[in-house]
């Protein structure tokens, strides 16, 4: 409650001086995570840009943390139906969490609007590791999958999925991979730097400062193209057909009319094209992987399908 009051006060302070367009919508964005994480900062960045660019007179952010976003998603789907002012932030992690947790609510129960940002997943070792490139690592996995311990984020998350896809592409049994889940990038990073595990896997942004300081080496990145800031090869270049991007998106309420959906999409499009959003991406170090409309729907369907397949193959989802 205190939260809402505070945000309202901040919002009021920020919009003073902006003449709001007559039909602009007041938005309420749900961040289905605790304050401070990626989804929360995405929601708060949207709040900032939507207001300062005059797209919306007042935007509030609400945090509903829990279970990879599925707690917030369930609440959003049941309380927002037909309300075009309600938005929710989400991402690839949610796709896995919905399957893993056997969540009764899925992304089909909301109206996905657009993919906003994305990040490559990177495979890295500490500088002291004898492993020099991705092929050596894969050879070790082929010889004895259990001997390669992977430190990464939560089980069934994007890091785990990427390891599964790599194993599959390399012809290694995905059920045999030795994936050690840590509660967050930070703890996993400590385990990699402390040489507790063979190799680490996390968002490329977590590793870049370490690479710069010479304490870690990136062996490969998971996206189709090379990632800015590292000359590490992509998995595809290295001969493994894996293309994963940890994306974040925004979705609207279920049960919107075509006009309502178009209006929300137009506002989001205006936000993404604005100078404010571009500078926000730069400060946060996020890559613009904006994708909307039918293209996004198709990509989302593809991601859901490949995630379902690999989680079944790893043995996490029955």
């Amino acid at each position, binding site marked *: 409650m205190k939260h809402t009051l505070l945000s309202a006060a901040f919002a009021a302070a920020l919009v003073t001086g902006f003449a709001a367009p007559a039909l602009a919508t007041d938005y309420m964005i749900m961040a289905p995570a605790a304050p401070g994480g990626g989804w929360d900062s995405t929601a708060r960045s949207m709040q900032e840009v939507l207001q300062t660019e005059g797209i919306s007179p007042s935007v509030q952010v609400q945090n509903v943390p829990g279970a990879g976003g599925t707690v917030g998603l369930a609440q959003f789907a049941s309380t927002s139906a037909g309300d075009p002012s309600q938005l929710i932030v989400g991402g690839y992690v949610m796709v896995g969490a919905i399957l893993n947790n056997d969540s009764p609510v899925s992304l089909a129960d909301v109206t996905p609007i657009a993919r906003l940002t994305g990040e490559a997943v990177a495979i890295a070792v500490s500088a002291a590791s004898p492993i020099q490139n991705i092929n050596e690592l894969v050879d070790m996995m082929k010889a004895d999958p259990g001997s390669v*311990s992977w430190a990464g984020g939560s089980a069934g998350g994007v890091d785990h999925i990427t390891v599964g896809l790599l194993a599959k592409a390399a012809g290694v049994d995905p059920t045999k991979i030795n994936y050690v889940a840590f509660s967050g990038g930070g703890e996993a990073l400590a385990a990699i730097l402390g040489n507790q595990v063979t190799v680490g896997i996390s968002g490329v942004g977590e590793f870049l400062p370490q690479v710069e300081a010479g304490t870690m080496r990136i062996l490969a990145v998971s996206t189709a193209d090379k990632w800015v800031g590292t000359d590490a090869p992509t998995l595809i270049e290295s001969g493994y057909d894996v293309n994963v991007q940890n994306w974040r998106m925004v979705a609207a309420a279920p049960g919107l009319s075509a006009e309502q959906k178009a209006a929300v999409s137009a506002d989001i499009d205006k936000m993404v094209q604005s100078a404010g959003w571009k500078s926000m991406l730069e400060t946060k170090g996020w890559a613009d992987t904006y994708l909307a409309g039918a293209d996004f729907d198709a990509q989302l369907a593809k991601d859901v399908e490949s995630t379902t397949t690999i989680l079944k193959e790893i043995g996490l989802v029955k």
Partner: protein
Amino acid sequence: MTTFDFLMQGLVVAMSPMILMYALIGVTLGTAVGVLPGIGPALTVALLLPVTYGLDPAGSLIMFAGIYYGGMYGGSTTSILLNTPGESASIVTALEGNKMARAGRGGPALATAAIGSFVAGLIATLALAFLAPYVVKLALIFGPREYFALMMLAFVTVSAAFGDSAMKGLTSLFVGLALGLVGIDQLTGQTRLAFDVPELRDGIEITTLAVALFAIGEALFVASQGNVIADTIQAVKGSVWMTRADWARSWKPWLRGTVIGFPIGAMPAGGAEIGTFLSYAAEKRLSKHPEEFGHGAIEGVAGPEAANNASAAGTLVPLLTLGLPTSATAAILLAGFQQFGLQPGPLLFATSPQLVWGLIASLLVANIMLLVLNLPMIRLWVKLLMIPKPWLYAGILVFATLGTIGINPSPVELAMLLIFGVMGFLMRLYGYPIAPAVVGLILGPMAEQHLRRALAISQGDWTTLLASPISAVILLVATLALVVPMLMRMRGKGQLLSQMASDED
């Protein structure tokens, strides 16, 4: 330039009037949110982030750091006066602190917490300035198996430190361990004991359990007793300030708490609570007045409070040297750094020394400000205890409920608060200690995960736990702490032990 020059330069930055004002705003806000259960420093900093876009980096980071330290301190006030821990690191403070407050010694309890926090904050911040690069190397040696050994040590020492009946203490501990199993298992992503309630998937919030068991349980207990014990609480007996004896009994626990709290805070998977548990257990063992523990021993407030503030500074070690956030608040501080285009990490000390030293210097300033702000407030705070009991407990109920649902507005959270509140009432009624339940909830999942990670890395080989010298030594100490008292008791020397304990006076 040497470290010392950098620090002096940082102090000059921190002493400018604007920066001092930011620090003041930070510690005031921090104390306020620390007092409210549930709404912690992490949420506050997250809410303030967007407002600080326009401010200069140094000023806003200093404000955030002030909130962090202030929150750590504020949590102890409600623990001591109202038996309502504001955050998980001040749970232990409630054990002895609230007993002291009920005996009319709320003033000295608050004072030893404030001065202990100051002393620990001061030493730990200086340690952060001068030892950070070395401490972080040590912290990285700790992998899953070493953490598991550390958890075992905490379990053994802590369960020995609680209550008179081992059976009741263990029962309570196992209740906590069972509650710790609820939610998504981190290593496999499978849901355990959630009964299809989505809110349970994330497990049971520690502050919800602590507030329910301590505050709600107590309010129900007081209500059930009618007016029978209405007059046993004296707001102030003797001086509001610490006596000479209080000082004499406090200074060693402050220092020991700092030594325990700082390195554990610096470990990427340590956490402030463990330091407070270990400090409490250590003080109970070393105290010349062990019989006072459980009835308001000042050492039991001084040590854990110092440990909790020292670990707050410890948390900044991996954040500033490795870019590793190891607590929720540290994660938000990291977001704050990134907002200003600064990437904390191995190069931060080299690339932005002014800012780092400015931050460290302002932590010192914030620390002094906290003391100045809070010592005079003690007189006011203890007046809380003079509020007629029905009002006070009604207030605690409202306050605890608001705080809990404030952070997580869901009916399930509220139901949990009430159910655990009734459980706390029953436990109190039948003489079961409540702290072990909270300890079980905190340590259980951590111990389990670290053990399973260690075994995953070794591919199921249990000897890995003893293969590392550090974990072998810690496990040995834990075993000795468990077995030696048992052996002595079995050989009929139990009486001798208690004899020895009482002879020490």
